């Protein structure tokens, strides 16, 4: 690590000082790095120097994990290592791999693994802020978080963290990765000038929206509400959810939200949307995840949010709705019944 130029680029994200030898425009630039327990170093390193590990049962051919060490082998891109909650090492697969290719996985999988090592609650979510309060959109990759986030951004919401979001013990959402990735179809339907936008990676029809095109918040913000995204074409097999659905639920053009009243169900939803649950298991942090998620559902309401499938329609119906107030999104009957159920 000593030969590296890791001090070249300084960033701040998730409450950490990040020194990197590779540019990470997805993170907020920091002027001065301060060495200390909150400093994270990202630097090239030969994987031959990485000590052998006796990987846990939750490892896979691509992922090798023990409690304080995480390795990813991504053929065609490179090798990544996060260890001791402080260091991320990387090695390029070959010279054809660009920095842009590497950083895509550095700021997602590798940084996410490091955050889990540090004991953070990391969720698959995008957080936005309005009037000093944060909302969290939870959903698996490709569930439409970024598209919805962009629509909300157009209504004055500011981005706090995208893709992976960290919530601390006080229920504060920490500023994280500040970039929205939109697919070609979404960019087209949102009438964005996609030809002017940088590609997420050269091989993809996915575009990155970054500041200054994106208004962002750089301070931790209190989490006010969590929405689990439901795309309409997805049929849901969850009994409780079916039971929860009331009048208006089947209108494909509507936007509706239902509070998940049972804390156990809310807890499961959070656990299922943990960032890479296998990382938690492989690094022996599953119990930590449960405890943190349980504490969070006691503090913050979790709602399921059903959205129309089409991007244009989503944009249109959002115009008259306020996600700050989930009760206003409840279907009529449910709205009347919710207080009694509580």
């Amino acid at each position, binding site marked *: 690590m000593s030969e590296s130029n890791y001090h070249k680029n300084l960033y701040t994200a998730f409450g950490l000082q990040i020194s990197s030898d590779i540019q990470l425009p997805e993170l907020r630039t920091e002027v001065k790095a301060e060495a200390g327990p909150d400093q994270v170093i990202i630097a090239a390193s030969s994987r031959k120097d990485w000590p052998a590990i006796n990987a846990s049962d939750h490892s896979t051919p691509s992922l090798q994990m023990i409690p304080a060490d995480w390795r990813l082998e991504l053929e065609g891109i490179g090798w990544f290592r996060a260890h001791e909650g402080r260091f991320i090492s990387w090695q390029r697969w070959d010279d054809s791999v660009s920095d842009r290719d590497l950083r895509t996985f550095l700021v997602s999988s590798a940084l996410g693994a490091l955050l889990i090592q540090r004991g953070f609650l990391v969720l698959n979510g995008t957080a936005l802020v309005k009037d000093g309060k944060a909302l969290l959109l939870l959903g698996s990759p490709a569930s439409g978080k970024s598209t919805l986030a962009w629509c909300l951004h157009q209504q004055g919401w500011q981005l706090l963290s995208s893709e992976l979001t960290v919530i601390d013990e006080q229920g504060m959402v920490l500023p994280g990765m500040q970039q929205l990735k939109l*697919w070609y179809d979404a960019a087209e339907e949102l009438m964005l000038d996609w030809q002017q936008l940088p590609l997420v990676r050269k091989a993809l029809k996915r575009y990155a929206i970054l500041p200054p095109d994106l208004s962002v918040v750089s301070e931790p913000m209190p989490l006010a509400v969590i929405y689990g995204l439901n795309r309409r*074409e997805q049929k*849901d*097999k969850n009994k409780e959810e079916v039971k929860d659905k009331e009048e208006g639920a089947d209108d494909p053009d509507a936007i509706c939200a239902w509070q998940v009243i049972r804390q156990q169900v809310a807890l499961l939803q959070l656990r299922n949307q943990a960032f*890479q649950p*296998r990382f938690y298991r492989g690094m022996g942090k599953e119990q930590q995840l449960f405890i943190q998620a349980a504490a969070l559902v006691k503090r913050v309401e979790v709602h399921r949010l059903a959205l129309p499938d089409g991007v244009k329609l989503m944009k249109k119906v959002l115009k008259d709705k306020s996600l700050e107030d989930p009760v206003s999104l409840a279907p009529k009957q449910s709205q009347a019944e919710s207080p009694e159920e509580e």
Partner: protein
Amino acid sequence: MTDQDNGYWYLASYPKSGNTWCRVFITELLRLSEEDAEGELNLNQDVETGSIASSRHWLDDQLGINTCDLSFAELDPLRGRAGEKAWLFAEGERFHKVHDAFRSPDSMGRPVVSTSGCKGVVYIMRHPEDVAVSLSHFFSWDLARCVEFLLDPMAGLVMTDRHGGHQVRQYMGRWGQHVISWVDQQQIPVLVMRYEDMLAKGSETFLELAKFLDLPNQPELVNQALENTSIDRLKKLEDQVGGFSEKPEGCERFFRSGRTGEGAEKLSFEQRQKLASSLDVVMKRFDYRGPQDG
């Protein structure tokens, strides 16, 4: 238990060839073999035989990345690395549906599914004329388009790279290529099941399936599971749950006719001839007749 004891299986097929029927049968057989089995199968709650091999969620978990960050061409060679630990899942979840061909043009000669720890594949096939009719109902396409699809060497599911989705691209190729890719591969044991035999010789065919998959295979149990999953029974079960969850939007019902010979009735002579002239070698090998064969 060793990894070998806990191996996993693939249920591979070209779409609309009886794969779901097979999965429902396995679910029912396992359900009936439980000591406290009672009631009947709920299609939308019980049929969980393991992730489809093209599930993005599954691949993200196995590969440790957001697969939206890779192109399909980059992803295909990596997909075979997902699944080695499938045996860690519950008993009923060791049977993975696959619609991909065994290899794709982008997979660098490798299988697109993991073969390590895999105990075998059941390849389910159906007369391509009947597949065309069933595809037509499923996708709401006209029959001419379905015939073209079956003959398209680059055919696949989820081909677009312009938006994300819950499944990744599944290259299938021409119907005959798909069959051969699985049936002639040498890496995992294969049991070929013709849909026509599943219908005409149900007891025998499903007993063979149960034995191949190391499932409970007492003949009376297999027959009971078969009876409980007949097409008429499945149609009734689908009505009970208000539509099978795997039914696409616009498709009236998932379990529709299930019978054989519909293709010969509904396709034009020219369409049948077109299929036969391109697929004749594979059709003949598996005893499927074309319009000229009477």
